[in-house]
């Protein structure tokens, strides 16, 4: 595919003898599908970043800066829809799950390779539908990514088509979940017991269950919006006996667990990177695996904490607030285990490790901010303010986003056979880290002071921090550009990357770089755990 000659050894890039675009978009090889997903989600990520930068420019100063209120409403809606449904939800399972999970369990492919390809196609069709919705009908949706009724049922913008696109993307996500659960149950290599499963696979397994059990609720909710708009069913219209709060219940029954679709695999990535760059087996393997399942389970019980100020009953506020705090326990288990793994380790601060470490810090800040939001008493004050915006960007961007970039630096060289230059990667990471904190910490402070979210204008006293936040977004973006240019330059033209330069003990490091289409010459027999560096032959 690339202009540059691949390493001479045969690999999945050339060993099927098939070239050209059709050999990619109709390939059932999990690695090719993984790369298809990777480039698709990365493209949408960049679109989302661009929209985010525009939003920040608008908020740089009070009053109208570069766009009017309707454009602003459309931009934050599309920013949210793209980042959530087109980038981070399909991102980890679709890209890195596909690239790595079959190899890490010692399989040749996923259980249903053609279904896997269908998932990617559905994802692309859904994405195309969403994009079409932006430029047709009444214009881009202006409801926010949550599509709350009654506004979404009445606005003249093109909500129906956008919602249909999200429905199709959701279907793709379900099929990926079905595929991954079946694969992990059925295709583990001989000796790959549940206790030897890499923790990234464990996190994908928990994620896949959330995809299976929560996404259908999103599907039916979106169907209900379309029915509300096109048929006038009135199920959420109080004038006709409906209840708008039921929409919020249904939406968050999916969308809260969806947060764990975004963060669990990111935690899995961090759990892979930390032991390798600490030269130490992971601390508390069983507890980390268990906490992934516990987060998925407990995360399904807490959707009501998005609705404290909605008019929901006080009893429900109490119950959901209490349950929300339970999620903090398995999350903290993970953080403590990562820190314990670092303790007395021989730490090498290379790019993937820097991302993993910043994940721990940023995720912890975001998570602790989440406790403020989870407690009903404090949430009332900061609900729907920039504090919330800061909180979920700390968790989803500082957490999942940084882990995604970490995964790119850790794993992509394995599939390209070439690597990036270390120094620009570190500089890019540092710029992103600094810019990120200026950008989003300012938002949290603004929210504490009472600046609401989703307004294109604000009071003059919020101006200095907004300006700081916008400048932070430029530092972040500059770092991101440097990082990506360096990474892709390296993947195509950089130094050769050996079979196992990082010294990992999971199976992907035991096969040639880049892997062959079949992954393994013979089906592997696993005799040691995923972080047993000694028995994997590492010093």
């Amino acid at each position: 595919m690339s202009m540059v000659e691949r390493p001479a050894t045969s690999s999945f890039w050339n060993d099927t003898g098939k070239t050209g675009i059709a050999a990619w978009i109709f390939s059932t090889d999990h690695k090719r599908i993984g790369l298809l997903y990777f480039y698709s989600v990365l493209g949408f990520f960049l679109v989302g970043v661009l929209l985010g930068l525009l939003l920040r420019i608008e908020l740089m100063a009070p009053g109208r800066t570069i766009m009017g209120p309707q454009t602003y409403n459309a931009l934050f809606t599309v920013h949210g829809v793209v980042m959530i449904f087109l980038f981070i939800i399909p991102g980890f399972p679709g890209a890195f799950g596909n690239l790595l999970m079959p190899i890490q369990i010692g399989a040749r492919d996923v259980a249903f390779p053609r279904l896997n390809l269908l998932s990617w196609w559905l994802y692309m069709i859904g994405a195309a539908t969403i994009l079409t919705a932006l430029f047709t009908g009444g214009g881009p949706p202006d409801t926010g990514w949550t599509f709350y009724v009654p506004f979404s049922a009445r606005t003249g913008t093109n909500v129906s088509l956008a919602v249909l696109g999200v429905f199709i993307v959701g279907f793709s996500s379900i099929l990926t979940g079905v595929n991954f659960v079946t694969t992990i149950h059925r295709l583990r290599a001989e000796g790959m017991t549940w206790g030897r499963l890499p923790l990234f696979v464990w996190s994908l397994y928990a994620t896949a269950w959330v995809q299976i059990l929560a996404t259908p609720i999103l599907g039916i909710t979106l169907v209900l919006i379309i029915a509300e708009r096109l048929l006038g069913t009135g199920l959420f219209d109080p004038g006709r006996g409906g209840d708008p709060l039921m929409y919020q219940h249904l939406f968050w029954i999916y969308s809260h667990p969806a947060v764990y679709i975004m963060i669990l695999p990111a935690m899995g990535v961090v759990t892979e990177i930390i032991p390798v760059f600490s030269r130490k087996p992971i601390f508390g393997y069983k507890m980390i695996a268990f906490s992934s399942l516990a987060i998925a389970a407990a995360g399904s019980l807490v959707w009501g904490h998005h609705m404290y100020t909605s008019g929901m009953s006080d009893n429900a506020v109490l119950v959901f607030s209490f349950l929300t705090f339970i999620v903090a326990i398995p999350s903290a288990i993970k953080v403590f285990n990562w820190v314990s793994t670092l303790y007395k380790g021989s730490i090498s601060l290379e790019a993937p490790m820097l991302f993993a470490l910043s994940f721990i810090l940023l995720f912890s800040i975001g998570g602790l901010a989440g406790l403020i939001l989870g407690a009903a008493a404090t949430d009332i004050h900061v609900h729907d303010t920039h504090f919330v915006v800061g909180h979920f960007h700390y968790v989803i961007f500082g957490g999942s986003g940084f882990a995604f970039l970490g995964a790119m630096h850790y794993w992509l060289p394995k599939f390209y056979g070439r690597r990036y230059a270390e120094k620009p990667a570190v500089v890019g990471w540092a710029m992103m880290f600094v810019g990120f904190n200026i950008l989003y910490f300012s938002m949290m402070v603004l929210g504490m002071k009472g600046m609401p979210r989703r307004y294109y204008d604000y009071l003059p006293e919020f101006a200095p921090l907004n300006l700081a936040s916008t400048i932070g977004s430029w530092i972040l973006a500059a770092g991101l550009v440097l990082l990506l240019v360096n990474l892709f330059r390296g993947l195509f033209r950089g130094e050769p990357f050996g079979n196992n330069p990082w010294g990992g003990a999971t199976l992907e490091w035991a096969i040639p770089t880049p892997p062959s289409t079949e992954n393994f010459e013979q089906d592997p027999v696993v005799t040691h755990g995923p972080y047993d560096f000694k028995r994997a032959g590492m010093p």
Partner: protein
Amino acid sequence: MAPGKQAHYIMGYGQLTTVWLGLLALTALTVWVSRHDLGIGHVWGSLAIAAVKGGLVIAFFMHMRYEGRLLRWLLFLTLVTLAIYIGFTFFDVLYR
């Protein structure tokens, strides 16, 4: 793994027909109950009969009775999840 290597239980036509007759009888019962019992327990009664019918379909027509433990646990997990979705919503609905 060769297809059909695992032993499959083959359900006889007679066995399936018996289940079918049971389902028809329960359908008649649920209609009869709805015509005669007008108490508040009536919705729960209909749901209980529906659950028994659903159980018959799953156990026999869908062969769950002859499957391994894994599928049964996963089905249980799904039903519990659905029960939680519906049940927890009532924390709001019942006390508003």
